[in-house]
């Protein structure tokens, strides 16, 4: 066999070991019991397939509420972003009006500003209006997406004006045109936007860490990170069970929508 083919097999094998291995270890650890973990932390297979770590995690913290909080937050953000990006993108792509360039410029500037830059003033401001530890405080700052607005605008540029004019002649309202006529045409873009946004905010640790101290509004990444901080000591099987609970939904979404996600991430065909 030629050298470069050998090399590429070796690389593929290395990638498989280095990337599948840690996941495997996470799963195996989560199926162990504490005595087993202390006795033989390196055994590559649990003595018995036990879900005791999951039960313990589930009973020690309100995991169901954390999952519900996280899903609700990510869903609200993703839907709100789509609902707002559609009319805004429509106006920027299709309508002539005074101040259009300025409006588009503002959207582009916001594309460059990450939450890691704005969190100090936003945290103080939301504190003053009493939105710390509320769902609104978690959702509102991300309600409008500069990226989403930009992507919807780009996608609408290739939709012919005649379609919209014909609908207007039929007496369609603006809301009808945007949400009923154009939204289905933009489905690939909107699906990509939804996926990116949902996955990002499900995983997000930073903003819930800044905005919440209250158990009732806590999201799952925070809760799992706390599992370790709260003195679990050597009880890594619990932390890994939490890790599986945190990552499994995202890995399922990933498995089901891999093509869309990859297209969204590589910014191809949007």
């Amino acid at each position, binding site marked *: 066999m030629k050298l470069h083919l050998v090399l590429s097999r070796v690389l593929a094998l290395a990638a498989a070991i280095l990337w599948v291995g840690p996941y495997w270890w996470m799963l195996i650890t989560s199926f162990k019991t504490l005595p087993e973990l202390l006795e033989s932390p*390196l055994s590559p297979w649990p003595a018995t397939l036990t879900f005791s770590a999951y039960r313990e995690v589930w009973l020690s913290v309100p995991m169901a509420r954390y999952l519900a909080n996280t899903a609700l937050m990510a869903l609200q953000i993703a839907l709100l972003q789509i609902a707002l990006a559609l009319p*805004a993108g429509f*106006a920027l792509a299709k309508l002539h009006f005074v101040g259009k360039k300025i409006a588009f410029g503002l*959207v582009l500037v916001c594309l460059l500003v990450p939450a890691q830059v704005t969190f100090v003033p936003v945290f103080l401001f939301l504190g003053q209006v009493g939105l710390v530890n509320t769902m609104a405080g978690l959702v509102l700052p991300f309600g*409008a997406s500069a990226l989403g607005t930009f992507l919807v605008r780009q996608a609408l540029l290739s939709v012919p004006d005649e379609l919209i004019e014909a609908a207007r002649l039929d007496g369609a309202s603006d809301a009808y045109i945007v949400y009923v006529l154009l939204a289905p045409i933009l489905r690939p873009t909107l699906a990509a936007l939804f996926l990116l946004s949902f996955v990002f905010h499900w995983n997000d640790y930073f903003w819930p860490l*800044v905005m919440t101290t209250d158990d009732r509004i806590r999201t799952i990444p925070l809760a799992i990170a706390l599992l370790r901080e709260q003195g679990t000591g050597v009880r890594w099987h619990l932390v890994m069970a939490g890790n599986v609970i945190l990552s499994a939904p995202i890995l399922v979404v990933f498995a089901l929508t891999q093509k869309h996600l990859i297209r969204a991430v590589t910014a191809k065909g949007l």
Partner: protein
Amino acid sequence: MKPAHRAEPYWMLAPTLALLGLFFLYPLFVATKQSLYSWDLLTPAKYVGFANYQVLWERGELWRAFRNTLVYSSVVVAGSMTFGLAFALALDRPGKVAGFVRSAVFSAYVVSWVAVALLFMWLLDSEMGLLSRLVAFLGLPKKNWLGDPDIAIYTLAVVSVWKITGYAMIVFLAGLQDIPPVLHEAASLDGAGALVRFSRITWPLLRPSASFVGTTSLIISFQAFDVVRIMTQGGPVHATELFVYAIYEQIFMNLRVGRASALVVVFSALILGLTALQLRVWRGRGTA
């Protein structure tokens, strides 16, 4: 097109612009103003001019945050691009096995930083961790991966490379797919070996993908926070204090809004500078 009503475009844009303005633009002005005040969130704010910047500079905190971030980002960008390119080349072929490995590598980019950080803390656990035991088994010197100030930042960087290599790989794979196979076939017929084909065909045509990945992952790594907060809390002795973590520490641990804001102002300028660089690189790819 003419709007149906004169007000139509404005109400369509209003919610988006209001939220973006309130949560992205206005905070930049507020931070700039607050960076000139001394405020502990309890007593009234006091105007201090540029004292916050001066203190941060003289104590070396500003330089430390910048240097740490630069070291971390350099390793992350170089590492993830190298592995990403190597894996893209090795896995750019049909078949279930290659597809599975591609998905495994990319999935790390999709799962939470929290999960990845905790998983590696377990693997690196000094007593029972798989990697620590492996190092001992191979007879290599025992290292305190997260507790040694000379090593910790590189540990964080390597974990981050594991996390985002899939991103680089996916972009490189997309780039590889745009290269017409006929180029390689023609070169092969002319007797060009794999190395020559890579340096004369593949790499020149992948350059745009490389600059895209490079600038994007540079900006991503400059904003790193989760991995620091979970794995080291900026320690030991501030050795892993990256920029965003330094800001977080100033406001939530030291209750110094003014100093946090001064760091925000400098950090924003850095991010904007990097983005300007990114746009230049991207524009360059259109004309080159």
